[in-house]
């Protein structure tokens, strides 16, 4: 794709284009001059120059923790970075309720749970609970949403069964525990179960969690993925815009600020 004009950018430390990067890591060796040199060598091998090992500390008898500053000559053409263009402004709480009321004309039904063995409801609660997260109201607070938060350790099939009973518009699956990629495995199983129940492609299926991103969620067969820092209103916007698109009330190619990508 041809770009209009090149826009080269590099990290900004305290001068334009100085390329300064900070790194920290641990080596499984005792603290010594040799360990420090090994750290510097490691960073040089990554392509950095001007390597300064700022701190080398004995994190334990046989582990050394490093903080390193270095410069990178790598650059990025910002004009060549492509993400979906932002066309619509993100709607706020009142605007969303108004749109639901006027354009959708009924309450939007949302189910959420931590499925599988995951017991950590922090994520799903942050998005769904009345209280919300970081000053952003949870979906339960919206008069336009009818929310069912089933909590933790809900079997995938059970979540789907209950959501189908209420003809849910969207199902939110939260996966917090990520050891050995258990979140991916369980998410896959959810999609399998959704396909068996024939809701895949009909009901909006959303995946959230600290190690989830939109691309991973799409690969797994979800409609969207929400990672760290997601606010309830991001999810609310996604659900409302997707519904409007499905109803033909918004162009399919419309994107909004805060949309997962």
């Amino acid at each position, binding site marked *: 794709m041809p770009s209009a004009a090149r826009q080269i950018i590099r990290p900004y430390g305290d001068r334009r284009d100085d390329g300064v990067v900070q790194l*920290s*890591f*641990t080596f499984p060796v005792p603290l010594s001059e040799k360990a420090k040199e090994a750290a510097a060598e490691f960073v040089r091998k990554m392509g950095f120059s001007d390597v300064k090992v700022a701190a080398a*500390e*004995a*994190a*334990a*008898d*046989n*582990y050394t*923790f490093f903080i390193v500053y270095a410069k990178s000559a790598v650059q990025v053409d910002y004009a060549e970075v492509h993400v979906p263009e932002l066309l619509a402004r993100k709607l706020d709480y009142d605007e969303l309720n108004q749109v639901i009321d006027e354009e959708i004309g009924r309450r939007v039904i949302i189910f959420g749970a931590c499925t599988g*063995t*995951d*017991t950590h*409801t*922090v994520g799903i*609660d*942050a998005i769904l*609970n009345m*209280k919300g997260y*970081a*000053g952003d109201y949870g979906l339960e607070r919206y008069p336009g949403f009818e929310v069912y938060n089933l*909590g933790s*350790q809900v079997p995938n099939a059970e979540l789907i069964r209950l959501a189908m009973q209420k003809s849910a518009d969207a199902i939110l699956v939260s996966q917090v*525990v*990520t*050891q*050995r990629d*258990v979140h991916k495995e369980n998410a896959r199983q959810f999609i399998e179960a959704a396909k068996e129940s024939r809701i895949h492609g009909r009901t909006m299926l959303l995946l959230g969690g*600290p*190690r989830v991103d939109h691309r991973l969620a799409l690969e797994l067969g979800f409609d969207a993925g929400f990672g*760290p*820092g997601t606010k309830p209103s991001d999810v609310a916007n996604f659900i409302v815009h997707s519904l409007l698109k499905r109803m033909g009330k918004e162009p399919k190619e419309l994107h909004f600020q805060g949309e997962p990508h």
Partner: protein
Amino acid sequence: MAGPFVDDSQIERARSLASETTRPVLELIRRHTTVSIERTVLRLLGISGAGSRGVPLANLMVERLRAAGVLNRGAAYWYGRALHLGAKSPLEVVERLTNAPLPPQTLPSPELDAKLREEVRRETRAAVEDLRRRVRAREDLRRELGMPKPPHKYVIVATGNIHDDVDQAQAAAQAGADVIAVIRSTAQSLLDYVPHGATTEGYGGTYATQENFRIMREALDRESRKLGRYIQLTNYSSGLCMAEIAFCAAFERLDMLLNDAMYGILFRDINMRRTFIDQYFSRRICALSGIIINTGEDNYITTADAYESAHTVIASQFINESFAKAAGLQDWQLGLGHSYEIDPARPETLLLELSQAMLVRRCFPNAPLKYMPPTKHKQTDIFFSHAYDVMADLVAIWTRQGIQLLGMMTEAMHTPLLADRYVALKAASYVHQAARGIDEEFEVRGDGRISARARAVFAAAIELLEECRADGLVAAISKGRFGDVKRDELGGKGLEGVLEKSPDYFNPLLEILEAI
């Protein structure tokens, strides 16, 4: 100094409301036993192995007795009957009671019945004496090496592999940790058995097994000797196996256990009756073994809002204390939990947090207290996250917390990297050293914001305790008063494992535990 905030008489009132609240529950506890309690008795008597496909022998035997409808007389009773039929070892007892028809319900004579009970009592006394010897060995090592000044810095390992956990625990101890917690594998609390043997595969943590306890405690003994200071070990006596885990932990000389009277009900949807009955027995074992319990009130304010629900923490602490005292625990064993969870976007959060922590200290002056770090509002900006944790370090030293679980700057992302623990320990050591004694230098003004907030929180706690006393604890839980979570008395997991004791119920371990 922590302000007085409220009169002694008001604190006495909170305490008496809590004990009136727990009294009817203690009645329920007295009349019932559970499969987990019965398995604990069998484990003490030496039935600790596992059969084919890893099913613990204690489970095999208890399940057989439950299915036959005779478990309500106590597993120890049937253990005695198997001995009487010629079983020569715990293994033979299991063999006799699982692979052959059960002995008839009654014995030929009351004399024989009494003789048989006396024999099992004798074996139980010997087993408890052995347990006590092991506990004394732990006390001796603690005395020999000495314990650091509180707050004891507590960090978590959670690799899933006990041998990797050992490496990380030793590294943490070398970096200054005083307490190591091995996080359990996700959802172990819902297993109605304790897995067997050393384990190397777990999700989100490492299975709590007696063998894993032994491996970690022995490694920490070696590390403690090397470092010249005693490193404590903790695990989780919660879920469907509270009592058994408490026994395994006591036997392997653990120092602390997470153990809460209501946590399983609220956060793991374990049946209310099951939890109340199991917590009592598990705490009796902790009382015998000098184990410090850590309660879980901090969890309430991860689901409910920390500012609006602060009083539920105080009310629950009084209830947890009442249950603990009824099970024979002493003040020094009560690591009552609370945490730094107020939304940092709010103004004056340090004042609010100091107020809450000081109020807890005021209500429970002789308990060690267990202080938890921020988690709910943690950000992926690790630099901010670290600053946030340092504030918790300051509140911990200021309010004389006994145990402080250190926050990790990567809390919002993943289980801690090795270096994250190092960074947290270095900062906490610095703050504790820098601010030690600060509470003696500053008095909280009686007409200021900290005092006003503490008084308001305490008043709301009294109101909640009054409601609990009037309506009952069951009703309060079913209305979502704690942690915004609602549970029914007959709902949740594990109710089928609760049995009403028969009139001739026999539990020689409980006899000893209640006689202390």
